[in-house]
């Protein structure tokens, strides 16, 4: 496996937000983590990216321990997060935002050609090249956030709720792009509340409840599973 999370417990102060979470992502796979608000999905992502240190447990990339590394070293190794709420740089133009994504030593030599690819993938971004990030629409900002992530030439692309606050047509477009990237071999770890869509497009899934893994398995099985249905599909 490419990325594995082993028995991570993390939280703030004495409160554990995620408890004993383990998950795996194989190369070229699209894995989804679903769960409601406050289930601990973003905390899990913060731990993987090194923005927060876990109390116990490990994060491994190709068997190499990332847990103690600072966030920039984790980016260097190719574990790239597109954060919740997009967090684009509002007073920088689209191009500057993208260039900042491609700063790591693996991506830098290819920065010009990667930029072309990102513009090809999202022609809207090319049109808006000199416009400030903060003036883009929500959907365009999400494209920019994903494009900025791709600029880093990720080995694992982690996305935290890319569908949040977007119109259904925009959500469909984002998922179409992710599907295309996955077809081309991109390894994707997606955190979502949009259960149906993310289970339909991914290969495997984990369901988090109250900071713990409640269910896991093939995405198709999870869609059929009564427990997923009860919890999220409202039946």
């Amino acid at each position, binding site marked *: 496996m490419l990325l594995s999370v082993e028995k991570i417990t993390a939280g703030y102060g004495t409160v554990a937000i995620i408890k004993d979470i383990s998950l795996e992502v194989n190369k070229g796979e699209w894995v989804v983590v679903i769960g409601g608000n406050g289930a601990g999905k973003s905390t899990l992502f913060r731990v993987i990216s090194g923005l927060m240190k876990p109390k116990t447990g490990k994060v491994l990339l190709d068997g190499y321990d990332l847990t103690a590394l600072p966030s*920039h070293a984790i*980016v260097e190794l190719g574990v790239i997060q597109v954060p919740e709420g997009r*967090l*684009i740089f509002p007073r*920088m133009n689209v191009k500057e935002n993208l*260039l*900042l*994504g491609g700063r790591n030593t693996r991506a830098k030599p290819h920065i010009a050609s990667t930029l072309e690819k990102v513009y090809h993938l999202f022609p809207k971004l090319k049109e808006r090249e000199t416009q400030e990030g903060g003036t883009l629409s929500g959907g365009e900002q999400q494209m920019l956030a994903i494009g900025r992530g791709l600029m*880093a030439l990720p080995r694992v692309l982690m996305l935290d709720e890319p569908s949040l606050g977007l119109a259904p047509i925009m959500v469909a477009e984002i998922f179409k792009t992710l599907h295309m990237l996955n077809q081309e071999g991109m390894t994707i770890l997606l955190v979502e509340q949009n259960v149906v869509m993310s289970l339909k497009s991914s290969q495997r899934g984990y369901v988090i409840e109250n900071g713990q893994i409640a269910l896991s398995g093939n995405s198709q099985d999870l869609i059929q599973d009564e427990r997923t249905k009860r919890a999220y599909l409202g039946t």
Partner: protein
Amino acid sequence: MLGSIYGLIGLGITMVFSVTGLMNFAHGDFMAIAMYLCLALYTRFNLDPYISMLLVIPLLFVMGLLVYHFLFQRMIDAELLMVIQMTLGMVFIIESTLQILFTADYVNVPNFAYGSRFIMGPFVMSGSYLVTFLIGSSVGVALYWMLQYTDLGRQIRAIAQNREAAMLMGIQTHRVQMIVFAMGIALLGLSGSLTTSIITLQPYMGLDFTLFAFIVFVMGGVGNFLGTLVAGFVLGVAEALGALFIGGHMGGLVPYGLFVLILIVRPQGIMGAR
């Protein structure tokens, strides 16, 4: 003509504040240190401040690195009041040390441009003002260019706009914060060396610089780099015109009056966003 210097001092504060959130009340005292270093080099080795600048600027940069590493870095997530306490403490330490080392006498350090005069229309200007203005404003423009168009500049702006996103881009935030802090202090090395013949040295002048820097910082629109440079320039002009046409204590009030006026008309600062 000192406007470009006010701009530089203010830009130091603006850059440091926007990437670290730190307010340094001892900022101006580092300029006092720079000026006294020039004085020492002048009295001991007869070095012109324009030459000792080459020594003072790197020295202040290193001083900035050390002070940041040993003091400020530990305060980065602390309460604002703690930082104010610490930096005010530094003010007293620096000012008393300067007084012990150099006494409280008022002194000036001349440079080779000091005696020369330039006549521009009805105005007569000392050469050192002209040099200060030229170097100060070119460094200001160069810094602005660096912030807009270089990788380091983009990293600085990224941290200022969203620290967490900057970390996710692989930016080494601690390193950039340290460099920016040291650059802010090094700018005072430049400003101090340029003004030894214009501003009279006395150990307690640091807080005055800090006060002026904060005014520039707020007037430009908190966190706005270009606004800070413009505000520094505006204040310098206001000060010069006040001294020229009104003079005395009333003239000295002009820049402060203008500051209050601008805050009433544009509370977000000259170039600040609402």
